[in-house]
């Protein structure tokens, strides 16, 4: 009968419905369950405060300043246009700007949309107290603050919003869009420790995205505080000393590798708008101590002297005569002193910084040996200090020259190499390590600047012995002592009354410009507690400006009882 088959048709259709439900609710059920949860759950991150940074005595170098932002909560706003109108009148600020910021920063109806950043405290309080501004909130936002500004800028670096390129690289490590990321300095290299753990609120929302309930809350965990090896008193003093100059002063405890001060000038103030520094003279963002490379000039003679003694090319008593120049091949290589220094042995040659003596010593050993010792003293490699983007400098060899320049290595190259000119390029920090080798009975120390992460001491400042003989060290040390303490020593201006100081000056020639002035040294001569490097770009004779700055630094250290 027809009704029976009609029943079959209708039952068949119903069976299809059940099949459909089987597919939707059983087979795909889990997927749809997740989708329905995504519909209603929103995560609002609570940014974690960054860890503070302080110097070795606990003086804060980086912390947070509370600033006041003006925000609008869309969910609670009745009349947006009139609210914006009132805000722009009260502050006062351009209405268009507020509207622009609002549309740019809008994310969800229940999160305050930031429309004005860092308004004056009085304005913020006045706005917050007004009753006719429904939906307006004053958000207190901690902003990174550096009490010593430019003096510590290169060591600390800055923080900024993560770039899309960085985000791509760091996403696997839990970084998210709009996260703050350290750039340059300790902020960058210790970002992982400083950044802390963001907390968050889990909200339940309805179809319009309005908050219905709070499901969960996890407080943000502040990042680790860092303690640096810096002494801000010294750092600040040196920064003012270098004001107006382009250069570097870096002070280290040679035994432990702890950096007491590291100043690169010119600098920038990280608390200010950085764009103004972008066009500034002298590349203020460059950390010259670790990133700048220069010919070391005569300071490199410390390496040559150690090498010659160690390799037995000369004895401490061996002497060469300096007539003021040396003929090598077709060229004539000058000593800095016209008429020459006459007959002299190693200690005297160091004291006078005699070029001819070191030309000859260099020629005796040959360039490969010099390069070998340069590397032994830490040149051509990064020192490993915890500051990012460090330069390795460069140590040339005849092989390199043949490959890279397609030229042979001449004796003239060796002579230049021996007095720290030519292709050799070093960072001030590398020269500091070199000086510290002599200061510490032949140990090459790894400089470090972070003393503690939270309460935990950082193991740093590893050193290894270069196996230089006691004799070698004492002769070179004697030479460096006379540099500062002999009446005709090139570094006599570095002397400070009441302090034992040894050192070496350098005047690195720069083609077409005034020479760079160098001074490296340490104090006291036995069991040195501080070694230092001074560089003044285009400062002329190392014995003058650089040595004078060194003296001021040593003097200050004495006052601070660091020496």
């Amino acid at each position, binding site marked *: 009968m027809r009704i029976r088959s009609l029943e079959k048709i*209708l039952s068949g259709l119903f069976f299809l*419905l059940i099949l459909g439900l089987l597919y939707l609710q059983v087979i795909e059920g889990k997927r*749809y369950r997740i989708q329905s949860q995504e519909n209603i759950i929103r995560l609002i991150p609570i940014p974690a405060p960054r860890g503070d940074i302080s110097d070795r005595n606990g003086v804060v170098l980086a912390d947070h300043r509370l600033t006041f932002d003006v925000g609008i909560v869309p969910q609670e706003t009745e009349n947006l246009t009139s609210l914006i109108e009132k805000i722009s009148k009260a502050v006062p600020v351009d209405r268009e700007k507020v509207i622009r910021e609002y549309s740019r920063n809008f994310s969800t109806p229940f999160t305050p949309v930031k429309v004005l950043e860092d308004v004056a405290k009085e304005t913020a309080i006045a706005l917050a107290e007004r009753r006719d501004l429904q939906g307006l909130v004053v958000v207190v936002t901690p902003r990174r603050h550096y009490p010593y500004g430019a003096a510590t800028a290169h060591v600390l670096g800055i923080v900024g919003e993560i770039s899309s390129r960085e985000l791509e690289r760091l996403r696997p490590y839990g970084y998210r869009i709009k996260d703050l990321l350290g750039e340059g300095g300790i902020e960058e290299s210790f970002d992982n420790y400083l950044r802390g753990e963001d907390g968050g609120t889990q909200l339940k929302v309805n179809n319009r995205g309005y908050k*219905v309930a709070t499901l969960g809350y996890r407080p943000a965990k502040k990042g680790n505080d860092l303690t640096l090896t810096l002494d801000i008193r010294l750092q600040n003093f040196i920064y003012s000393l270098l004001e107006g100059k382009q250069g570097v002063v870096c002070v280290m405890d040679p035994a432990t590798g702890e950096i007491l001060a590291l100043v690169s000038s010119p600098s920038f103030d990280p608390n200010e708008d950085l764009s103004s520094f972008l066009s500034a003279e002298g590349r203020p963002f460059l950390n010259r101590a670790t990133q700048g490379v220069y010919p070391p000039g005569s300071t490199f003679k410390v390496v040559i002297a150690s090498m010659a003694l160690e390799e037995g090319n000369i004895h401490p008593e061996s002497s060469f005569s300096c007539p003021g120049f040396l003929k090598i091949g077709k060229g004539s290589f000058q000593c800095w002193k016209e008429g020459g220094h006459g007959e002299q042995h190693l200690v005297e040659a160091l004291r006078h910084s005699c070029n001819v003596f070191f030309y000859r010593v260099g020629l005796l050993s040959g360039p490969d040996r010099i390069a070998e010792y340069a590397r032994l003293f830490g040149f051509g490699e990064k020192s490993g200090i915890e500051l990012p983007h460090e330069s390795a400098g460069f140590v040339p060899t005849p092989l390199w020259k043949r490959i890279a320049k397609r030229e042979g290595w001449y004796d003239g190259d060796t002579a230049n190499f021996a007095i720290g000119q030519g292709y050799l390029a070093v960072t001030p920090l590398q020269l500091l390590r070199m000086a510290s080798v002599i200061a510490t009975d032949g140990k090459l120390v790894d400089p470090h600047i972070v003393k503690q992460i939270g309460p935990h001491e950082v193991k740093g400042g590893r050193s290894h012995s270069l196996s230089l003989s006691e004799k070698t060290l004492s002769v070179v040390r004697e030479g460096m002592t006379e540099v500062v303490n002999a009446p005709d020593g090139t570094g006599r201006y570095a002397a400070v009354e009441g302090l034992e100081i040894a050192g070496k000056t350098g005047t690195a020639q720069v083609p077409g410009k005034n020479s760079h002035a160098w001074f490296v040294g340490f104090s006291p001569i036995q069991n040195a507690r501080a070694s230092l490097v001074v560089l003044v770009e285009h400062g002329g004779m190392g014995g003058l400006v650089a040595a004078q700055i060194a003296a001021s630094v040593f003097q200050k250290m004495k006052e601070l009882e660091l020496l």
Partner: protein
Amino acid sequence: MKSFLKKIFPSGFDHFFFWTVVVIFLIGILFLYSTSLNRDLTLKGNYALRQLLWMVLSLAIFFSVLSVNFKWYYDLAYVLYGVNLFLLILVLLLGRATRLGAQRWLDLGPIDFQPSEFVKITFVLAVARFLSGKDLTDRLRGNLLGAFCLTFVPAFLILKEPHLGTALILFPILFGILYVAGFPRNFFAWIFFALLMIGPLGWFVLKEYQKQRLLVFINPNLDPLGSGYTVIQSRISLGSGWLFGKGLFSGTQNRLNFLPERHTDFIFSVVGEEWGFVGSTGLIFLYLLLIKRGLAIARRARGEFARLVAAGLTTMLGVHIFVNIAMTMGFLPVVGLPLPFVSYGGSWLTSCLIAVALILSVENERGL
């Protein structure tokens, strides 16, 4: 009541059919309450309460329909049909614009009256009357033309409202009646073939929003926040119910307002979300029982008119159930057909109960 029923039902009242309807209706009330929970639970916002009030009115009509001698429906079939057509024309003339841009209601003071819901019944009566007592083998073509005309006129008027879904739903009901009436089987094959051919031409007749609905039906992600939104959210509601559902009154899609039209056309999605696969198939089984029982009554009917009325009205209910549920699953376009006894809506509830009353009356009828 027992004596009342005895009096008007000498040959028996199908309690099973009736009580299945009541159970389905009560389940509907439960879910209407659930969809009202995030509104104010006053008379204004509480769909369950309002539906119960509609039920009181509908039951009065239900018992009136039961108490009328079934013979009268045969006599009055064309009159009722004619009055209903008149009301449809009235809607077109006086009907007020709704927020959806369609005119479907007659405003009768506190009550909105939707004649297109009642035409689903009166046209069944008219077609059944027209076909009963005719020798189909004799004047097949004439009978066919007459039955189609009886369907086309109200379909056209409803299409003008415009309400495509209701207009189109009349045809499967018609086919159900024609089938039961004994039209040759190959005729239905021809109809099917012809629809397949003409169907695509219908595209040009469609209004822009109707085209949009069809496009979105093919790919809901075409416009996920616009026309596709309802389908996507409906599927999420159903699917997220999983096997046992999120629990009565606990559907997040429902309670947090993600599902539009959830008290009317999409109420089945709420059932699926809160009661899961178990609950939604359970409801389908109840409907299946209802349909089987309705057709059983049709089978037992002694007269041709009664048989066609019972089969036609049962088909009417069955087709609505199928199209509505398939629509919530996204397997058919959103055509705006409500679910019998469950979807909120006074006219619809009343016409469903009239259908039930008529089917029950068939049991009482002899000899027509």
